[in-house]
């Protein structure tokens, strides 16, 4: 069995999983209007971490999240030769060193925590986080490592904001995933982490079970989703089959839900064609914005909190149905025992990935 636990989140909503959970229970969003943040000095909605300024922001966040995770696990794991750290990120420390966006952070983290191996970086656009969690689980299944620490991190930058502005993909209000009036994404920054392990004893608090999934490319377009959701459908089908789980066993879907017209529409088509439309679903982007390479890890960590607290969290920003296929979007927080959840992600480069978490 592959265990997952010791989840940590550093975000605009707090420095640990509990503070983040409290904010979500209160339906507080980390998104705020930032004056003059845009390319032409436009005011832009962003989910930024207060006090995270200056150089080495990426490194600061990664170190902070790993310190928090360290307190939740058997500390000897960090330095073990049977442990590797995987970092999921799109742009890393771009603002510090354009030409080498990851090395400095990897070396600093290795030295500070006495890691046996240099952390490995996985960079697959917006599916990075889910993909990296799957890689972690499969490394353990193959007995390549006994413990894998997964960290997902991306920081806000002019670079990424200007880029999405140039694509006319940034919403002029807080993003509203799956809503009829959605107008695009809101960018966020944050860092999530979790330990994936073969050993239950590695965790100070009870872990959950990771049912690793697969990725599938849309083979359609580098910067737009497939109209049919082909890759997402293939990824979910394989993830279900690989784990011998039926669609009806899924209690909740944590969708990608970026808030763009095309992404959310594509997801509705994919979930509909898989007969999963009736399953309670949310997007967490209304709370965290789109944190790119961190999103899959942060959102999986939130799913784990939802399972631990037996509570569905409402999909922030959603009011009116806005996709061609109906979805069961969570309108209000609701107590519910969650045994099996599905987490999905889709992104630039045509990537799609999915995984499941099961209660023990």
């Amino acid at each position, binding site marked *: 069995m592959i265990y997952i636990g010791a989840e940590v989140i550093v975000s605009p909503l707090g420095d640990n999983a509990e503070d983040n959970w409290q904010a979500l229970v209160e339906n507080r969003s980390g998104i705020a209007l930032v004056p003059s943040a845009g*390319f032409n000095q436009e005011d832009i909605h962003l989910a930024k971490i207060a006090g995270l300024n200056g150089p080495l922001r990426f490194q600061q966040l990664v170190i902070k999240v790993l310190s928090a995770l360290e307190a939740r696990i058997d500390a000897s794991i960090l330095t073990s030769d049977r442990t590797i750290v995987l970092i999921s990120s*799109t*742009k*890393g420390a*771009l603002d510090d060193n*354009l*030409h*080498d*966006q*990851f*090395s400095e952070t*990897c070396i600093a983290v290795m030295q500070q925590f006495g890691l046996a191996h*240099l952390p*490995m*970086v*996985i*960079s*697959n*656009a917006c599916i990075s986080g889910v*993909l990296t969690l799957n*890689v972690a689980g*499969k*490394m353990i*299944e*193959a007995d*390549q490592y006994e413990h894998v620490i997964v960290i997902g991190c991306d920081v806000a930058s002019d*670079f990424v904001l*200007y*880029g*999405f*502005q*140039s*694509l006319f993909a940034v919403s002029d209000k807080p993003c509203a995933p799956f809503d009829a009036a959605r107008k695009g994404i809101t960018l966020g920054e944050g860092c999530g982490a979790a330990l994936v392990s073969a050993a239950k004893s590695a965790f100070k608090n009870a872990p959950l079970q990771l049912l690793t999934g*697969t*990725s*599938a*490319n*849309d*083979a*359609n*377009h*580098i*910067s737009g989703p497939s109209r049919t959701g*082909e*890759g997402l459908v*293939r990824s979910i089908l*394989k993830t279900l089959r*690989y784990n011998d789980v039926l669609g009806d066993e899924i209690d909740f879907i944590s969708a990608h839900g970026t808030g763009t017209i095309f992404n959310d529409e594509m997801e509705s088509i994919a979930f509909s064609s898989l007969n999963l439309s009736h399953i309670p679903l949310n997007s967490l982007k209304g709370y965290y914005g789109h944190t790119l390479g961190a999103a899959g890890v942060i959102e999986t960590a939130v799913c784990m909190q939802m399972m631990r607290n037996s509570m569905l969290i409402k999909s922030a920003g959603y009011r009116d149905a806005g996709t061609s296929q109906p979805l069961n979007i969570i309108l209000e927080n609701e107590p519910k025992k969650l045994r099996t959840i599905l987490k999905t992600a889709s992104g*630039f*480069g*045509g*990537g799609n990935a999915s995984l499941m978490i099961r209660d023990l």
Partner: protein
Amino acid sequence: MKMITAYCNLRADECLVNGEVVARRDAGSEDSWFKQIYRQLDLGYPKFYKMDVLSQAGYLAMELIKKANPDITAAYADDEIALVFANASSSAETDRRFMQSYETGGSPSPSLFVYTLPNIVLGEIAIANKWYGENMFAVLPKFAPGFYLNYSEILLASDSCALLGGWLEVTAGSTDVFLFMVEERENGTEFNNGNLLHLSQTGLVAAY
């Protein structure tokens, strides 16, 4: 047995397939080096001109491997070839160009921005071949055979039946591209640490 059944090395002045030089850079040409190879191959894929250097390199090396080993496409279902690529500098070269687009008085360029992610090359190869399989892009300090060996063990134990591995380092100062096909076959070069390292350096040795 897992075998490397075809491979391509793309360097600053030479392009090699299975160790044989198939194209040499014409320093006098006005075309970029990758454009020269594209023209020589007569590929008829106009999307090539829109791609950044990383995607151009990956696309060309893939086409050259298919040319050397035409069975690849027919031998596998559309989701059975996994793409596992890595490099050291992510998409830095295109990142730099995108930054220039807005730091020098202009507006941020959307056509550059969409290539400011290293995994876009995987999408381009998937699109060109209609491949729906597993994709992964890692950023590593240097070419590391163990990375491909370990991840192939994981992929080939699951739904993937073959692997296209890639090391794609294309910056202003250097071109170091190595793509290789790994399949379950009787013939070929055994897929192991030493062979991978050796083949990745093909063409460098010839310079001595």
